[in-house]
């Protein structure tokens, strides 16, 4: 058996804790150090995992520990800086989504990762949800034909008063519901349909002073369909974040959410619904969502075999280029071309 990969975690928010717990429970990896600014959180962790070295400052952690991989789960504004410091030391990185505050900020990471022969993954975990994965397979088969048009949304009932914390400050989050949440949806659309050429986007704020609470956009794919994206964290009736994508293809249609996948074929008039129960694959340990375990396992496997992860930096760039164009379009109130990074 090969030795465990020594990993560090930077930032113990909700996702940091989830990754830490998963990594602690699965084989092939050992978390040896954690950097977290809040003393209360460090103290709590110290009593639970006394074997892990705790730091208030991630740079000290990188300087003192002999790590192979780092999970970057700090607020978005820190992603690129921490990623750069890790890559310069030749460490492999897993960065939570989104990659950074903007494409310009993150532009140097891919050459840096390539130059240091590092494995770098961005946490676009929806690739690891069974229904979305199955939809990708179906769209690649010929039976549905070419995708022509789509409509899509991502909603959650989260913010109905003035929000506080880093998510609602533009300088630490890079934006509101689009950058924090709907980047998952942008990522899926890019995965399904390729590159976007042009976007037209409108945003609106009601609860947040600095960032957007509502997004409505039109996306035109270079060699794929065009369609709409709606996103908000202030919509009622969505206890959990929900993504829904409906695609009209040449020979039928397809609808996919986290819960189910439904498709109709004109050729034989057939219609089929696959629930997540039909597609269910168990995981070695379940903490808050099977997709988190799968993405962590994928990253660890890639580190061991020196493979490029499925959601690599290029994938992070793709999303960043589209969201940058969406913000630019909303600000200029016109159609904007997407500039690849």
């Amino acid at each position: 058996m090969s030795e465990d990969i020594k990993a560090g975690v930077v930032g113990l928010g909700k996702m940091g804790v989830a990754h830490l717990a998963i990594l602690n429970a699965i084989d092939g990896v050992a978390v040896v150090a954690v950097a977290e600014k809040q003393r209360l959180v460090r103290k709590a962790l110290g009593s639970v995992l006394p074997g892990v070295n705790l730091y208030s400052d991630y740079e000290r952690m990188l300087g003192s520990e002999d790590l192979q991989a780092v999970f970057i789960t700090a607020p978005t504004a820190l992603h690129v800086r921490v990623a750069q410091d890790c890559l310069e030391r030749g460490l492999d990185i897993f960065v939570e989504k989104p990659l950074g505050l903007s494409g310009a900020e993150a532009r140097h990471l891919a050459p840096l990762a390539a130059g240091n022969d590092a494995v770098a993954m961005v946490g676009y975990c929806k690739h690891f949800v069974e229904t979305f994965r199955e939809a990708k397979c179906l769209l690649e088969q010929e039976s549905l034909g070419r995708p022509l048009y789509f409509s899509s949304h991502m909603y959650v009932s989260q913010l109905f008063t003035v929000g506080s914390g880093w998510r609602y400050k533009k300088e630490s989050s890079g934006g509101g519901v689009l950058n924090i949440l709907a980047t998952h949806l942008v990522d899926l659309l890019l995965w399904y349909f390729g590159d976007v050429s042009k976007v037209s986007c409108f945003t609106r704020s009601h609860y947040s002073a600095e960032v957007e609470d509502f997004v409505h956009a039109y996306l035109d794919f270079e060699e794929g369909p065009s369609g709409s994206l709606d996103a908000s964290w202030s919509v009622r009736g969505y206890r959990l974040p929900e993504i829904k994508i409906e695609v009209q293809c040449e020979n039928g249609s397809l609808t996919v959410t986290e819960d189910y996948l439904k498709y109709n074929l004109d050729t034989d008039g057939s219609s089929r619904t696959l629930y997540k129960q039909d597609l269910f694959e168990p995981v070695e340990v379940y903490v808050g969502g099977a997709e988190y375990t799968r993405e962590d396992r994928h990253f660890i496997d890639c580190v061991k075999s020196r493979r490029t992860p499925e959601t690599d930096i290029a994938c992070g760039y793709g999303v960043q280029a589209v969201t940058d164009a969406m913000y630019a379009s909303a600000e200029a109130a016109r159609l904007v071309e997407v500039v690849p990074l």
Partner: protein
Amino acid sequence: MRFEPDPVMLGHNQFIGVSHLSQDAGRTREERFSDVARAGEVIAYSVSQGVRGMMLSTHPRARDILDYLKAEGLALEMNMYPLIPYAQGYVRRMNAVGLTGMVREILGQASLKTKADIALYGSLGYLKRDLRRLLGAFVDIEMLLFKDFNVKAVFLHDAFVDLSLALGAGEEVLSFSDHVRRRYGAEPGFVTMNFPLLVRSFREWGIERPLVMTTFNSAGFQMNPSREACERALEEGDASVVAMSTLAAGYLRPAEAYDYVYSLPKIDSVVVGVSTVEHTAETFSIIRERREGAARAG
């Protein structure tokens, strides 16, 4: 003494707009049960069919349901099994106001309304120094809702149990156990999606014959790391098991679902989510038949 849960417990998800089949289905339920009398009708019918146990989380609608039970004189006929904390509510608040904002909000809320009822162990500053006392205070705040009810066991939500299992947080689990026994004279219960890991970890932590609510269904849905491993842990472990997701969130028909559940050894109880009187009648008649069959088979 061996703890014996009620053999059938009424679940609460359907009453609070939760469906693990789809959020669309959840929204339909949310609308249907916005009138608490509709939930009351299903509960009253279940009680008339001999069901005595009910699971309930501290969702905002729980208070309405509990008030209804009191008003209808059903409160003392039932054993309540609170499921705490209301995890999704915390996650949403944490996303909205941050971690410390959420802690302050919860403690602040409780100390205003119910200072006398809760020993808050002093100020927030003191709590910051002691994670376990903070957890104890959270339990007390959530338990206030149930103070006029028969609480037979208190279940810790799977979000916390599974996190504790993955982190190996045995001390925190033991402290929850002690707190529930000491303060409420109730059995501590644990909900998990990682049953074999729980059996293994609890054995290491010296927790004997724990009360565990976990997924058992013929589809293998949410049975991690595999259906076989869960069945083996049931066979070999020494836990009092309440089966949940027996219909794999509405995906299986009751007949095939309960054929499977009652073919398993050592299932002490099932938690069942029912939404209409007709559905309740059908489900409980199948359960009764399968349970009696299993008992006869020994």
